[in-house]
């Protein structure tokens, strides 16, 4: 597995417990529109992502992230 594929697999696994509607998740899935997450769900999810990868995703950075693919890219960048 490439680094990106590995990151993506971990991100997908962390999305699952919050995927209450059982939406089929792809890189194009949007957090707000498709998964319909509210701000508290986002906080919990982001905290899990941050803990998993030992990074910080600031609210400034979060505002630029719309899809699962964009999050995977951001995580890759933040891990350096």
């Amino acid at each position, binding site marked *: 597995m490439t680094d990106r594929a590995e990151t993506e697999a971990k991100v997908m696994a962390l999305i699952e417990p919050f995927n209450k509607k059982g939406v089929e998740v792809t890189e194009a899935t949007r957090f707000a529109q498709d998964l319909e997450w509210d701000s508290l769900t986002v*906080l919990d999810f982001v905290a899990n992502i941050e803990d998993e990868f030992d990074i*910080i995703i600031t609210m400034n950075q*979060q*505002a630029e992230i719309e899809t699962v693919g964009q999050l995977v890219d951001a995580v890759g960048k933040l891990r350096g």
Partner: protein
Amino acid sequence: MSTSALRPAATEPPEGSSETDLFSKFDALIETREQLLSTGLTDPFGLVMEEVVSPTVAICNGRKTILLGTYNYMGMTFDPDVIAAGKKALDEFGSGTTGSRVLNGTYVGHKAVEDALKDFYAMDHAMVFSTGYQANLGIISTMAGKDDYIILDIDSHASIYDGCALGNAQIVPFRHNDIDALEKRLKRLPPEAGKLVVLEGVYSMLGDIAPLKEMVAVCKAAGAMVLVDEAHSMGFIGEHGRGVAEAQGVIDDVDFIIGTFSKSVGTVGGFCVSNHPKFEILRLVCRPYVFTASLPPSVVATAATSIRKLMHGKAKRDHLWENSKKLHAGLKALGFTLGTDEPQSAIIAVIMPDLERGAAMWEALLHEGLYVNLARPPATPAGMTLLRCSLCAEHSSEQVDEILGMFEAAGRATGCIN
């Protein structure tokens, strides 16, 4: 209330709406309100007080109403000394300053209220803003610059989020009152980066307090500066009424305390106190301080008088605690779900099952002759609808009994309790 977190969905106008303009983004809210009010419900956000009898009683819709949602914790609004000071200043200095604090808007009264704050908090510096909202807006946006980090509790007040939005620092939220989450985030940030941690003593929605002792220690270990908003604890919590940081023994490690005159002090205005040797420079660089008119002379005179009286308010503080404990225990016994297991402040939040029943209960209480705050998302955490009660040191024990009777009657009438 948090605003941005993983880009929110854009609002699209609902189908069938013919006119689209800049107001279209509010259509969903307009519809929710119309639905709620079409049931004949009194607008919970449109109450008018026709007469104010005392800190605890007003006339609303021609009816005598007990006030249990005013933040007038220490009941100073009708204190004779406070009123006299205001009238005297109005006579001697006029109705307003018509100017900024840094130009023609600083009178002796502004210096006097800052002196009163320095004495009250036993701190070196005090800076008075025109509102508490502007105090947070100004200090937060000015202190944290582009490459600095603001680490804040997710349940922070709107004025804290707006201070973040006005500045351009990096914003890192952490889960409400979670010491471990705060520590983890601080440790992940670049060690050399400037860090400002923003906390509140009392969180006003549920009335819970922060574990400041542990949190401030974690912040100091990470080399972060700490700002604590003590808006809802001033005058009441801590030996001298300085707030939760005082009660938990960490006030000396707090870099900035933010407060307001519109709660325990009983008028309007905001402030920041600090011991930092460079603090005074903020008067020149803090835009929400510079680019607005200063408080009217009568307001600063009432505030200074009230603050000095609050220094000797132990008997009132004790009675307020009794009221808080009595209301909390009584509501719990009636079967209501409350925001905290034990009373932690002068705010008792009653959790409603949903907005409809919350609004119905709010109206039933008003008909009984009781005013409380109806709080709803996005002001509330976790999408909750709350009936928020804030007690006053001037509520008599008999009034608290009366209040409990009203909650029982309204709760049964609306099916909120059995």
